[in-house]
């Protein structure tokens, strides 16, 4: 399958990445090579095969709904790149 620079732009936007112009053509070429190789799967007939996300049967795991302390706010905020007393700080998101 052909991977164009437009498609690289599209998936970059979805991924919140912004490749510099000079890297786009290279990335498009690399992705095309890999995706073309992934197309090998088309030579295998999978009609009627149920997709498998986990190899072992997973079931809902329930636990008693007990009240326990949550993590300490100061500890969680201590790793933030920017913060105030109580919250993470980011640029204004809503006008």
């Amino acid at each position, binding site marked *: 399958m052909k*991977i164009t620079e437009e*498609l*690289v732009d*599209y*998936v*970059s936007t*979805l*991924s*919140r*990445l*912004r*490749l510099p112009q000079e890297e786009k053509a290279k*990335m498009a070429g*690399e*992705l095309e*090579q*890999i*995706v073309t*190789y*992934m*197309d*090998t*799967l*088309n030579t*295998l007939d*999978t009609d009627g*095969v*149920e*997709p*498998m*996300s*986990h*190899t*072992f049967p*997973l079931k809902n*795991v329930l*636990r008693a709904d007990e009240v326990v302390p949550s*993590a*300490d706010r100061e*500890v*969680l905020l*201590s*790793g*933030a*790149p*920017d913060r105030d007393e109580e919250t*993470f700080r*980011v*640029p*204004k*998101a809503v006008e």
Partner: protein
Amino acid sequence: MKELLELSALELGAAIRAGDVSIAEATQTALDAMAEREPSLNCFITAAGEQAMARAQALQAGVKEAKSPLYGVPMAIKDNICTKGVKTCCASKILGDFAPPYDAAVTERMAEAGAVSLGKLNMDEFAMGSTTETSFYGPTRNPWDTSRVPGGSSGGAAAAVAARACWFALGSDTGGSIRQPASFCGVTGIKPTYGSVSRYGLIAYASSLDQIGPLARTAADCAAVLDAIQGRDRRDATSLDVPAGSLLSRLTGDIRGMKIGLPSQCFGEGLEPQVADAVKATAAVLEARGARVETFSFPLMKYMVPTYYIIACAEASSNLSRYDGVKYGWRAPEYEDLTDLYCRTRTEGFGSEVKRRILLGTFVLSSGYYDAYYKKALQVKALIKEAFDRAFEQYDLLLTPVSPTTAPKLGESLSEALKMYLSDIYTVPANLAGLPALSMPCGFDGGVPIGAQLIGPALGEAAVLNAAHAFQLDTDYHRRSPYGKEVK
């Protein structure tokens, strides 16, 4: 002191319990080896020598009550496993100096067993790579030949164990990241059954494939580590409620009547003849101990790598969306608005291999391509699982190479991403099917190690380890040291 470094973890643990060696003495010996070898190898991102010595002193008082055979043994931890208050950054710029507010389940369990952590080990960024060259902190080098890579992504772990800078290490394996570096560095490593070790506190790459396991000098050491870390943990919803803790006691070396299958498709095109010969010689050793070995056809091999990379990248693109420069880690210094903050932080904070996999994963999940790639891969995964089920109706274990080649030179692999991905062909099947698989040293080519892989059925760790133990009773590849004179 050199002799101490050549002991296995269990031998050192026994010497500590017998009072022949103090924990501080063992720790200092490892720290000295680290100081001597680290400048040429770069195994560690964070060395915690002072904490380790303090811990060693504190542990000594409890040596008489020690329950684990690994009590007091110095070890180290891959940098994607959370250690409370100790920098854990997945070898990525984007995590900055992140110090987790909690311990991973395996970190807690190793601490309960009485292990001494020497620090955090280098790796490919977010465990994405086969060479440990994608680390933001520079590549790790192979102790057997410093012009070569140690493999990856647990390259720091494998190199540190091989370099005698620790007696064992905890790594993680998503598509071979324990086994392939173990093979390249001449150590023994096992990826256990998916769900048998808690992933709580393991920084996620591909959650349905990731599993934590040990790298050590011997199969018996690996059994002892798994005994300490396996078992149900309610904080990981995929954690299995199965008995754990008896692997070491079940190692007998008796493999008479064990049926071992060699998949013929694992010995074909692309495999270096020296590697093929060493793995076949491994089969002969196991046969001499009473196993029955036969070749059989395992036809889905050519679909393994594409299936793996579709699933792994899809999950990675989702898992890595949490790195946005807000809650922890690094943030780009300049930005205009919130979206710009995300984009600049991620674009400048991730390395090129990570970005390539995020883009691939986003592509295979995107509208219009989901069915053709992601859904298709999940269907092929179901067929792969069935193929393994059929193989294990006939055989107790499978024997294959770990990697088609021995360790490549630095810089050879990254120039061609697809070629690097293809070299994962023998290791990714066990992750796709969730099976236990072990790598053990089985020979040398030009002075660098070759590894053989044993794959077992789900929860078949005991058989896998017993076969490896039997092999190690009759061979000495696992005992050879890069600092011994006999190997060249």
